[in-house]
């Protein structure tokens, strides 16, 4: 059911672990849904120089976290903000429809981590599309 890319990122996740003293942290999801993603970023001169993640979740959730951290590393905050769930899913060579919410979680995790950084710097947080992942769990998006 998973692409070989998803399996690769699941079996050999990149950037897994806790970052000491991160510049920004984004935690999304909840244990009720069965997936929690925590993304850590280190920022230097408006650029993400390092990213790490911790994830409780299924194969797609772990692979999405791994891919998301890969995609944002080296990007400016503006560029990283534009990394969408579709981009994560595409980089993974597709996700099963019922697993698309894992890539949404990754996008939300990136946004949260960036806004956490901005808030800590005394900057205005950028507007997030709140609860898109939650809506996938409860709304009509549930049945693909």
């Amino acid at each position, binding site marked *: 059911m998973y692409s070989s890319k998803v399996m690769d990122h699941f079996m050999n996740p990149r950037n897994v672990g806790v970052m000491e003293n991160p510049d920004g942290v984004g*935690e999304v999801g909840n*244990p*009720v*849904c069965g997936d929690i993603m925590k993304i850590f970023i280190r920022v230097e001169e408006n650029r993400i120089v390092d990213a790490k*993640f911790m994830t409780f979740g*299924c194969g797609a959730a*772990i692979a999405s976290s791994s891919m998301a951290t890969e995609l944002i590393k080296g990007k400016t905050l503006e560029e990283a903000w534009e990394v969408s769930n579709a981009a994560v899913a595409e980089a993974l060579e597709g996700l099963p429809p019922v697993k698309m919410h894992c890539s949404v979680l990754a996008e939300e995790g990136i946004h949260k981590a960036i806004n956490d950084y901005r808030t800590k710097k005394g900057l205005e947080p950028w507007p997030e599309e709140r609860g898109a992942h939650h809506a996938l769990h409860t709304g009509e998006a549930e049945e693909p």
Partner: protein
Amino acid sequence: MAEERLVYMDHAATTPTDPDVVRAMSPYLTENFGNPSSLYRIAREAREAVELARQKVAAAIGADPAEIYFTSGGTEADNWAIKGVAFANRRKGSHIVTSAIEHHAVLHPCQWLEKQGFPVTYLPVDADGLVNPGDLEKAITDETILVSIMAANNEIGTIQPIAELGRIARERGIYFHTDAVQAIGAVPIDVRAMPIDLLSLSAHKFYGPKGTGALFIRKGVRIDNLLHGGGQERKRRASTENVAGIVGLGRAIERATTDIPGRTARIRALRDRLASGILSTIPHTRLNGHPELRLPNNVNISFRFVEGESMLLLLDSYGVAASTGSACTSGSLEPSHVLMAIGLPHEIAHGSLRLTLGEENTDADVDYVLSVLPKVVSRLREMSPLYHQYREEEKHVQQ
């Protein structure tokens, strides 16, 4: 790390067809291919084979052969029993009682019947997965026409007190159906001695072929047909008989129900070693289902801080085939209704693993699973924010 080895521990999902069963079936796919409804010799031979299989199924559960109807499997048998009894007994009433932990082959027909105007009561279960007979007594009304409670649960393995539950229904003149799909070959069942009016079974759960099952319908039970068409199965179930499948079912059930205690003793010992091995070596685990009243092959354990599907994927990379009640494998986003019904919090239900043993499993298989599972769990826990958070909190408590 990929191993060549295959350790299949998902026998509750399906079993391999026994070679002896395949041998018995084979002539009915080749030379004896006749339609049992036809008149010539190869058709008569097919007819005789179907009737011999019927006798074997009947003997296995203490029924009369005339009370056995072949179906396409457990799902059809469940649908037929529930919808058939509901519509045939409408004048008497419309209320149905079942349990919250039934297989979807029972729950979904019941939910469909609710839309057709049949009220359904879903009995709760206790933390071990048992239906309380007192709850059944309370749920029954003057309108109740059917009680359907499974003999044994497919996920957590809990064996229900069906003799007692059936007696409560019988004393009130209400039909009692049991989905015995998981119980055949594991638990002795005798419909002569037990107050069971309808019973569903499926061949592929006990080393028979897929796509074949049966419904026992006690003589005199009022039930409508589910499939309409030709006059097969004494005009009760239209469709040309799956002759080879039926022959396979007959051979498989004969095998599975001969000396049940002897056949299951070895598997039971493997099960106990597997379960206690996991529970004693991996912390933050719990056994789901009743500790004693459970299927001899069922181990269902929840692992805190990890999610089931990722456990399955890693186990698969080691060649171990298992199952989970996590939402992430079912195509829905809710964890198993059975694990919810026994009161597990969502996050614990998401971390459940079901290992169901079978005849071909060995001591070496159990040793192998006990050697790879701790690695799988600790690897996932290392990347789990829930586990990390737990350990941080533990540190604070100790300081």
